[in-house]
């Protein structure tokens, strides 16, 4: 059973719909026992960084997640803001601490070198990925759907794919059992469903 963590932010039903479509059993929950019993976790996200951390704190989810992810090494997939919350510091409208799961990582505003490019970065974009379990059987220039103004910055070895928007930006990461995508696999047609399947089946 996969638990989609409900922290009061995010398109949780879209994520559940996608998992249902690939035949995966999943629930939306923030109950401690559900999270403890889950085989894998998904931290979805459509939200602002500060609000995301505040909502996790208010629901007392941080100690539970720290234990499941850092101690028990349960696989977790963060989507969009969900992934961004894994960092040490977020610079969206101020400076805020994140979950701190990825060393020397930050979330920063996308500033493309071409000032004609629109921000937020919205739409379908080709990504370039390394060999990674999440991208198994997906061609290297696969398209995914992005909608964001901020991106995750971290050490090169954790970055599993990038996209180009007058500059290269992180589109996915992996640190051991911690996975994250900046794009929305639940909204990226067949490529996204395949990626979710890869996460579910690993």
């Amino acid at each position: 059973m996969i638990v989609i963590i409900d922290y009061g932010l995010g398109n949780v039903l879209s994520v559940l719909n996608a998992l249902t479509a690939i035949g995966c059993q999943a629930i939306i929950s923030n109950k401690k026992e559900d999270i403890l019993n889950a085989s894998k976790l998904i931290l979805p996200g459509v939200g602002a960084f500060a609000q995301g951390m505040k909502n996790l704190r208010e629901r007392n989810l941080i100690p539970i997640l720290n234990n499941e992810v850092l101690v028990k090494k349960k696989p977790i997939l963060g989507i969009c803001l969900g992934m961004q919350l894994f960092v040490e510091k977020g610079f969206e409208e101020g400076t805020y601490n994140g979950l701190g799961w990825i060393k020397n990582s930050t979330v920063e505003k996308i500033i493309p070198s071409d000032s004609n490019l629109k921000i937020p970065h919205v739409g379908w974009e080709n990504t370039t990925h390394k060999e990674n379990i999440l991208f198994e059987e997906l061609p290297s220039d696969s398209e995914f759907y992005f909608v964001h103004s901020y991106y995750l910055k971290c050490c090169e070895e954790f970055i599993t794919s990038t996209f180009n928007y007058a500059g290269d930006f992180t589109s996915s990461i992996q640190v051991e059992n911690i996975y994250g995508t900046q794009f929305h696999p639940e909204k990226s047609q067949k490529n996204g469903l395949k990626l979710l399947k890869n996460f579910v089946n690993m």
Partner: protein
Amino acid sequence: MVKKRLILTLLINQESFVNSRNFKIQNIINLETIVEHLNFEAIDELVILNVARNEKKLDRFCEHIKEISKNCFIPIAAGGGVKSVDDFNKLLRSGADKIIINTSAIENPSLISDAKNFFGSQCVIVSIDVKKNGSGIQEVFSHNGVVNTNKNVFEWIKTVEQLGAGEIFLTSIDMDGIGKGYDIDLIRKAVEITSIPVIASGGVGELSHLSKGLKETDVSAVSLANLFHFIGHSLVKAKKHLIQAGLDVPEPLWNF
């Protein structure tokens, strides 16, 4: 580089899908009869608007979004009658991925910044309905295109951008449902003065209008809303047309 998007806009009035002509709506087909047959593979994004002219019942609208989103794996932007951050959340929990506001942004501009602080600006789409007045000035109308706010569209775009909107859904009431193509001047100027993405809406009657919109302006997405585009393979044809016109749109994963 991010691709141009082909968007289908679904207009919902109570229990029906509707067509609109200069914002006069006509019920076309009952939702229930068509929902299962919707195929979203040829399009890149879906916009769903509650265009009920009397009370816009949000809970019922959320039910519709739940149904439509069940088998829809492209982004859904939904709106119509959204008045609060709570309403944003209700729709996001019903299968929407981005939220559209219009009249409520005009009546209560701080909703834009409140929603931005909660959900991030990428989740906040401001829909703007405009009509040209006698002296050629494009004015913003609220309440389903009925009330003239006397706001200049370009000033309003700058205002909502500063407040934290993440996208503009720009509809020309004059061109809506007429089938003569987009108001190119309006879109071109809107794109020029803002740094957030603009979606062009209102006027598509034939496929060449879609490519014209993308070629003659730097708009991020083109929307079509006539329900007859649903019928047969019209959406597939629309996508094919854009690819053949050399536009950088997402490549479909199915065979033509």
